[in-house]
């Protein structure tokens, strides 16, 4: 009765697809940052596709990254996306600094809206919380799978480095 595992499985399936999609549509960027953005993009797209369309966040994620996958100059878009992410992160850091318990629910909900993809479109706090709940489940699945995959790579990295040192 492991439906969380099923979520992870669906995510993996979609992730394979998106990785292949990305890999075929961009010329191999050697930059680590570009690769990172491509992987991030593909996995975000994968969780959105795994959720497949009945939630606001998944649709927003898809529209946010969808046009990037269908057109050719990927690398430039990926870089642009990286810049936007950096801007968002700075904004969130600043906002976090100002938050105290006195600020209240309203500002926090606005902040949560900025975090959850497509949250700005949701007016009702009720829906927002539903969306957040769903989004958290899929984010967790994404993190778990990626951590597992990265663990494999890490271990193999250990092995090869030991061999090199011998």
């Amino acid at each position, binding site marked *: *009765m492991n*439906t*969380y595992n*099923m979520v992870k*499985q*669906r995510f*993996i*399936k*979609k992730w*394979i697809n*998106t990785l*292949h*999609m990305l*890999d*075929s549509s961009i010329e*191999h960027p050697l930059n680590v940052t570009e*690769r*990172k953005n491509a992987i*991030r993009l593909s*996995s975000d797209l994968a969780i959105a*596709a795994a*959720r*497949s*369309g*009945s*939630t606001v966040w998944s*649709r*927003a994620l*898809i*529209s946010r990254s*969808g046009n990037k996958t269908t057109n050719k100059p990927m690398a430039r878009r990926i870089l642009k996306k990286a810049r936007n992410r950096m801007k968002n992160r700075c904004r969130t850091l600043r906002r976090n600094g100002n938050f105290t318990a006195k*600020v209240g*629910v309203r500002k*926090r909900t606005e902040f*949560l809206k900025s*975090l959850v993809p*497509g949250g700005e*479109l*949701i007016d009702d706090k*009720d*829906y927002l*919380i539903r*969306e957040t*709940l*769903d989004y*958290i*489940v899929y*984010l*967790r699945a994404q*993190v778990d*799978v990626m*951590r*597992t995959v*990265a663990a*494999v*790579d890490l*271990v*193999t*990295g250990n*092995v090869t480095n030991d061999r090199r040192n011998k």
Partner: protein
Amino acid sequence: MDLTGGFGARSGGVGPCREPIGLESLHLGDEFRQLVTTLPPENAGGSFTALLELPPTQAVELLHFTDSSSSQVAAVTGIGGEIAPPLHSFGGTLAFPSNSVLMERAARFSVIATEQQNGNISGETPTSSVPSNSSANLDRVKTEPAETDSSQRLISDSAIENQIPSPSQNNRNGKRKDFEKKGKSSTKKNKSSEENEKLPYVHVRARRGQATDSHSLAERARREKINARMKLLQELVPGCDKIQGTALVLDEIINHVQSLQRQVEMLSMRLAAVNPRIDFNLDTILASENGSLMDGSFNGTPMQLAWPHQAIETEQSFHHRQLPPPPTQQWPFDGLNQPVWGREEDQADGNDNSNLMAVSENVMVASANLHPNQVKMEL
């Protein structure tokens, strides 16, 4: 592995629950082997619509989601239909001890919502397994898919109305019996209030000493729904139970979402750093892992891969794994030393990495220039 330690207190709830970690627990099946081997020809066009398994018109709609206001309205009402049922049924079943169980339940409801949306595209196992289960929670879930969209709000409102007096009295740590009893009684109420499906009214019982005019009733119903869902979120986000007040709970939730997003960022950076190609890691891992999962016993057949590998004297490192014939890709291996690898396996945690070890040999990291210690420092 010290990976989980690096992720901080926020994910503390995830850390201890290590049982499902590891690809073996992902229960990959036949479909994955098919998927991997037939994947390159399928995705030659890179079709986005195929990814979503939706008709092209709907997929195009999704692409232009944020542009049109009509789709915005549709989105919100769409959620009311799909997400409403599973999450409402969440409202009564609160105290659960373990994080993984929570994730399962949350995932189950998301899955069920997806099932409803797609008309059981992705298989009937979630919904079919639900009626077969006899727990109180799943009884409530079972009633949900049978209902129409407009009725769900009514039923859940009355259901939540029943739940609200009790949670304030119970502490979350213990009383599973109480919650199950409550679940059963509210299940009965669910079924009895199904006759109200046709009516457009919200049947809410006013408590003693409270105003009874329609506005405050509706307002109270809405507030209670929100509170119930906030409690759900509290359950889902680790460490959130003890906080009172919506603002702080929202704080915790925001922190949780942020930390998860940051983790994704760091993990994708790590994956990018280790692998020279983008799609290299996943399908190779899953291809070989799939074989090892499908047949747990090691039959000792020599690897059919064209590896210049050393003699396979360390049988014990492969004891529980079977490495299948290679997929279409060519893996440029230098000889990975298996005794070294076996030693690595001994140091690793019990179940989680044992299969990963088998798989990791197939992952080509020989070209990785990044020292693994550096990667760990990033955390």
